[in-house]
């Protein structure tokens, strides 16, 4: 077990290094450099070059990556914070600390200060969505899978297929049309500030629904497929031949075995939901990290884009780890070597 944990951890570390490097390389491709952004479009090339020099941007790519990581883990001070540059950027946490993600040029603030509130909002959105997604998709998937081949199964599968196919923003538009434009039951935007007309809870309904719709359909289909396949296994027949009822067979023998493959999918869905969150927050003007990422991407705020991406990568890593562990927990056949 210890061996397994160590190996997984070292794998995770390696993945973290390689993916952060990849991320760094990709974002460094951006047409406008940091210096150009600071100095504005009318700056002279030699001014830009000078600033590049000061910020260490003219160094080689691996070197810059090392600098970036050093700032991140608190070994170095961020050159942007140097008062001599006159950028008016300072960090209340000090110059060097672990988890220094740099300054957001869009907000002229440390990234950590910018991220706090949106991160909490997005976590709320994700958590509420998950509360609906997990039980709903399992229930629907198990129901359809245990009755594979019946009319019920066909209806559920078709519905899931259609729901899954609807892109989030289209689902958003349809829901907005129905519930906001025609019925007027719900607010069209979700700034998360309680107004006279709309409570915060009512502002959460549509974003959560959009997020849940696509995911429920998708996960339910996977659960269904796995359940339906498990139903055809010889050991299910063994259970039938012992004289167990269908309910007993499904609850005792099929669900645990049928959940092993979809479990990974369900957890990786968290990862995929990050994308859904971006779209969802954009539609409803929800003040979360997704919308922030999009703004930062369009603005070219490298530090912010890098930080948010790093966070989602970290989340991906953790979910992967959780998925692996629960896979082992559910499946006695897997030996930890």
């Amino acid at each position: 077990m210890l061996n397994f944990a160590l190996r997984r951890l070292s794998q995770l570390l390696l993945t973290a290094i390689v993916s952060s490097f990849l991320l760094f390389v990709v974002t460094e491709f951006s047409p406008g450099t940091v210096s150009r952004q600071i100095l504005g479009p009318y700056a002279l090339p030699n001014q830009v070059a000078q600033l590049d020099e000061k910020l260490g941007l003219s160094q080689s790519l691996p070197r810059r990556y090392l600098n970036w990581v050093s700032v991140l883990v608190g070994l170095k001070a961020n050159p942007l914070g140097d008062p001599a540059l006159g950028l008016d950027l300072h960090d209340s946490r000090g110059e060097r600390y672990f988890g220094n993600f740099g300054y957001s040029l869009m907000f002229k603030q440390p990234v950590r200060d910018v991220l706090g509130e949106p991160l909490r909002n997005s976590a709320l959105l994700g958590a509420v969505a998950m509360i609906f997604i997990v039980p709903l998709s399992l229930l629907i998937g198990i129901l359809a899978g245990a009755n594979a081949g019946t009319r019920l199964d066909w209806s559920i599968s078709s519905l899931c297929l259609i729901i899954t196919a609807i892109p989030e923003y289209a689902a958003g538009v349809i829901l907005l049309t129905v519930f906001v434009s025609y019925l007027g039951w719900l607010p069209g935007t979700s700034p998360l500030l309680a107004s006279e007309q709309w409570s915060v809870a009512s502002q959460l309904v549509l974003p959560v629904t959009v997020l849940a719709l696509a995911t429920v359909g998708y996960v339910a289909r996977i659960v269904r497929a796995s359940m339906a396949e498990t139903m055809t296994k010889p050991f299910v027949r063994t259970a039938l031949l012992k004289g167990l009822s269908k309910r007993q067979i499904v609850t005792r023998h099929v669900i645990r075995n049928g959940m092993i493959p979809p479990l990974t999918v369900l957890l990786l869905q968290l990862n995929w939901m990050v994308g859904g969150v971006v779209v969802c927050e954009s539609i409803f003007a929800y003040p979360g990290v997704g919308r922030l990422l999009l703004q930062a991407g369009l603005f070219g705020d490298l530090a912010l884009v890098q930080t948010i991406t790093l966070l989602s990568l970290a989340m991906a890593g953790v979910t992967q780890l959780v998925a692996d562990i629960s896979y082992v927990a559910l499946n006695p056949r897997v030996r930890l070597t």
Partner: protein
Amino acid sequence: MTPLLQIDNLSLFYGTDQVVRDLSFSIGRGESFGLVGESGSGKSSIANVVIGDMPKIARARGSVRYDGVDLLSASPEQLRALRGRRIGFVQQDPGASLNPTMRIGRQLLEALEQSDIPVRARSENVAEMLSRVGFDNPGAIMARYPHQISGGQQQRVMIAMALLPKPDLVLLDEPTSGLDVTVEAAVIELISDLRTQFGTSLLFISHNLHLVSKACDRVGVLYAGDLVEEAPAGLIFEAPRHPYTQGLVRCLPGQSAVLQPIRGHVPSPSERGPGCLFASRCAYHSSASCDQPFDATTMEASHRVHCARLGEIPAFESVAGVPEVAALNDAPPIVTIRKLRKSYPASGRELFLANDDIDLDIRQSEILGLVGESGSGKSTLAKIIAGFDVATSGSVLIGGTDIARLPVRRRKRGLLRQVQMVFQNPDSTLNPTHTIGWTLGRAIRKLETGHLSRQSIRSRAREMLGLVALLPGLASRKPKALSGGQRQRVAIARALSGKPQLLLADECVSALDVSVQAAIVELLQDLRQRTGTAILFISHDLALVRQISDRIVVMFRGKPMEIGSASQVYSLPLHPYTEALLSAGTGKAEVINPAAVERPKQASGGCPFVERCGRVVGEICWTQKPGYQNAGPGHEIYCHIPPAELIELQKASHAGILIAG
């Protein structure tokens, strides 16, 4: 007294296809009945009817009465009650029949849920049943998951599960398929034992006539959904009356001197007429009497035969005797294997030896049989020769080249031409996307010498089809349109297209029905005569190997235990392992240590067979590797005991049985 299970005029349809036709038989209380049939005979469908678990598209007609209850019209609740308490079922593939995520104990307890036994006593019941099916430590087994025990143990658990509610009838559907012969023998023994102890009736379904006749009182032979013959078990081999049964017995290895395959193929449901379904393959067929429906004839001793021309069918004459013994081959070796070793890293720092210093010659145009159970390393040897695996050390010389560590991708065309292979699975041996002609043409183009025109490749391909007795018209067909036997023939043609010196045949008939298997064996022997290709014939079936081979090598855990001519090994099996294998095949007394049968462990230092050996002489067997001893011209055994002494020991144990009996 009414029989326990009575089936009358049962017909079964899957959609429009009739899979079972007017079937009638009955099983009395305490009686065991065996149903034998090749693939497509409908035998498993009958089992499904009895347990009331038919596919949705199935329709049944007739009556199936179980202790007075008509199963075809029973409600789901009635069926469920019957299944849990009165009918037990042992499926094939025990590994898949147990829930992989539930402990064995809990799965066994479930079998008692419908019973009247008080909950507290159930655990004890389970433990007792486990010990009766041969587990020394039931508690430990109950705490395990299915993957933690061997295949034979899993089947014992399944048998225990079926017997736990003390049912009146137990159905066994191919209960030993996939198990090694020695394990199979032990399972069959266990079934017969338990039957006498519990007085349970059995319905034993299998493709294997030997097994069924060993375990049952009466045997029914199914052909394409028809019960063609029903007879007391003893009569099936002695005096089969139906032409199909007679044919079946004649193509069983070990029953006669020469295998006589049944020509033709089992008619598919769409080809079946109203008359005798065997007609298309029957030598006695006459359309006047055979092509209309007719009734079965009952003979003496509850022997029923479904044949319209029964009067004209000659009585069965057993062509008993041994296969022709080829003169001891003095031809020069074409392949010389020396000190060949293949090891894999196993758990911890141990090595698993798949091949353990093998010394072996394969002589020109001989058929060398290689027998062993799963894990004996016989396939590894073939893979190394073929180049799909590389040896750890040692050499395999062919025409002066050492190919032991030369993977197939690095072999030159001249070398590839010399060694070819026929694979086990007829379903995947031919590429389903290409036609037979394309496949053969490609092999001819790559393996024949000289440049060939398109025209000549085509005519060569037809020639090759002719060589394996297939019609040239098949060249334009895809493999899907061919039967398993036909595909295997094409695979043989493909392998022979470059006129190889050595043909490797790794379990190439084990997936085929016996009648087809016999035809392929006949073909291989014939091809050897005509082309002079040596064949390394690998199989787990000793009787089959004996039928086809000139010489035999018996492998155990990567080491040849006994090498000799076919008649030497078969008529005088000296090595204790060969002896055990032979006795498992024929149902004679076992000389192996049964408790150790399923313990897959590698002996360190001593003889690899020591744990299972019934003739261990002492400490030396555990600590020292034996050497090869000469037991006659070309006959060697790997044992500490001198051959003369082994002969004495065997005589003594046979005498022992006589006294005990």
